[in-house]
């Protein structure tokens, strides 16, 4: 029995069949972290910068509206 099964077996609240599938999936995800990161690419720095800029622009839009229109 793998350490994963030792750690989780009977503790997930799932049926045995589903639990075995869960163990298989967790093992795949833990073993292939580098592969997974290539497949499920995280957001890059430019994405975060763009998100921050959009957030700031939204707040600025409200402030400018007050100055210009009210």
């Amino acid at each position: 029995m793998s350490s994963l099964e030792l750690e989780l077996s009977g503790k997930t609240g799932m049926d045995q069949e589903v639990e075995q599938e869960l163990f298989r999936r967790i093992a795949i995800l833990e073993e292939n972290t580098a592969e997974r990161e290539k497949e499920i690419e995280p957001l890059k720095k430019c994405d975060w910068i763009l998100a921050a800029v959009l957030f700031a622009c939204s707040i600025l839009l409200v402030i400018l509206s007050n100055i210009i229109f009210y």
Partner: protein
Amino acid sequence: MGETNTSVNREAIFGLLPVLPSERTWNFWDFASVNVGLAIATWCFLIGGTMSFFVDLKMGFVAALAGNTTAILIMAAATTLPSARYGLDQYTSLRSVFGVQGSKFALLMMVFVEFLWCAVLSVMFGRAMQNIYENFSGKSGSGVVLLIAFAIVAILISWLVVWKGPVTIRIFNLIVAPGLGLMMLVMAYLLVRDVGFSGIWIAPPLDPAPDAWWNFMIAFELNLGAGFSWWPIMGGLARLTRGERSAFWPNMLGINLAAVVGTMIGLASALTIGTDDPTEWMVPLGGPVFGVLALLFVAFANITSIMSLAYSTCLALKQVRTFLLMDWGKLTATFFIPAVIIVFFPYAVYDNFGSFLAICATFYGPLSGIYFVDYFLLRRQKLNLRHIYNMSPASGYYYWGGVNWVAVASFVTSIPVYYLFLDPISFASTTPFVWLTASLPSTIYAMVIYYVLMKWLVLSKNLGAYETGSVGSRTEKAVP
């Protein structure tokens, strides 16, 4: 064996198991079309109609764009990114925040709200179809029975599609979403053609308060609430995307920009024609054939929204053991039963939409904030799948009796903070509201108090498995 694998593979899609990278079915444009299909529904027009009492088109556009962008950036970062990275349903990954049992607290609250959303959308579908029927038959005042019947048809169609799973939802949205986009442009064209752009542009708000800036902040607050109210469902959808960019940025196209366009159409029509309901003006302005086609698309816009909402919610219900063991078809049917009951009171649903939206804002903002702080600031985007699925006291996410009471307390105390600024039912406000809104202070409060209390009461006691690389018994297997 093959049949067993098939059923278990289906369970992975329909259930609580992490979706493997090879199983992700939605690319950027797939999720964008699902997003657009979700965003464009009669609720956009209703929000626009509510705003028409407070602001004109120009300020309505600013309020809608700024409010939705601000809220959706926080909400989408908090919900879609963890789900995309780990392939987890949102309520499963929430076990890292609220505890392995405490996540059910967020679930319970959310499910009740989603019943109501399904009912609201079904009633709106019913109204659209009722208007089509009355235009074709020449009979007005067809009565509530027909409306209810059509609302139940909406639920039935939605159930049939959701039962088949996310592939069917994706296909349905790929067909309907472009049509919705086109329909929005046509609606805008009809309004401009018949009312004139200058007429729309200068049309004053219908019943504004004396303080013009207060009116604007109310409109901004409504859109913050609308943006945060997507919290319950986006994570469950994002787990099927192929990357974090595919999970995050489509929200800006769909539930942000597309929703803003829909809101503007509702606002413009309410300001100039006197109703935000396109089912009442599409046929008079567009003619019988075109008007009816447009109405059908609007009606089905509600169906696409119900589908995505129901899929995400039913996935979340798998947290509860009774539903975990239930067949997907039965589970989805069970979910729709309360909505069927609620649609028998269609006017109670429809007439209280504005208050319903405002109340949603009181708690989805803080929930987004708490989730954001936990995942990005405290966990540095690292979740431990073993702890997530371990429901025993040995789990790093067990906290106290399975519940992170700090998260619960942070959330519960943030709700009265909202009321310090604005009463979401009466719109009575205090002075700070006109500069700060109500959603933003309550969200920021939740974020700050959660961060401080977690550092003081949880991390200092080595609870919650927050140590970098710590995964219980295997310290080298932190799953980034």
